């Protein structure tokens, strides 16, 4: 329970800090880079290394590459729907999370099938 609480606090602080930096930047396309900041990873890696060791965290980072590819697909689709179709941000960015999840898990299975 303490570990989860610690993750919530550290994760909240790191994510909010990156979001605040993003708020101050112009133009919007440059500020958007901060939307894909490694905030969750920065908040998690130290705790993971302390608890499970460096090798465990390294395996997590390897999978994170696939998560980042899924993030690229997610953000590209969301951007297109908002600019071209003029759809509102909240439904697009929330529903597209399912696309991110599908892409991340699909890439992971594809990668493992390829390696085995």
């Amino acid at each position, binding site marked *: 329970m303490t570990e989860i609480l610690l993750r919530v606090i550290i994760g909240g602080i790191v994510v909010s800090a990156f979001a605040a930096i993003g708020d101050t930047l112009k133009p*919007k*396309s440059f500020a958007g880079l901060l939307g894909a900041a*490694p905030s969750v990873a920065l908040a998690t890696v130290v705790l993971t290394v302390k608890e499970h060791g460096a090798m465990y965290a390294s*395996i*997590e980072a390897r*999978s*994170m590459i696939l998560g980042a590819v899924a993030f690229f697909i997610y*953000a590209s689709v969301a951007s297109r729907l*908002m600019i071209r179709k003029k759809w509102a941000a909240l439904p697009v960015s929330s529903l597209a999370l399912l696309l991110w999840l599908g892409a991340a898990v699909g890439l992971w299975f594809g990668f493992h099938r390829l390696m085995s």
Partner: protein
Amino acid sequence: MKVAINLAALKRSKWQEYFVRFIFGGAVTAVAGIIAKHYGPEIGGLFLATPAIFPAAATLVEKHEEKKARADSGRELRAHELAGVDAAGAAMGSVGLAAFAVVVWQLLPRCPVASVLGAATLGWFTVAVAMWLARKIVWRGVRAKIRRRWHHPRITSEFSGRKQSHP
């Protein structure tokens, strides 16, 4: 447009908005840890690249732009487009996120955590900015090409009645 820092923009956000980001960020970080514990590091690692704050950030960009448009009646409402531009930036940032992951994956078993995270963050920033600059340069080229095609010297000179330099 040049990159600039506007600290006054921090005052535009209300404390509730910061609170929402804190809760979102904290929840996603905790969930990533719980998933790693249940399903192992290979599945858990995927969630280190979750679009943690993106839905909240894009919604705030849209809200702020709508507020500005309401305050200034002459201003064109383009809230969705601005949120979309923010998302396009995030897509470029995600390439940097992959670079961050590669650095951590390769260096963590051999080097101290603090230096690995420092190098990885620098890698993320460098790759993300390089992607942003590359996109800007490519777009500038595409726009110039379109302009040249639409305002071809031969066509415009024929329409304007000027004498052509080429036969």
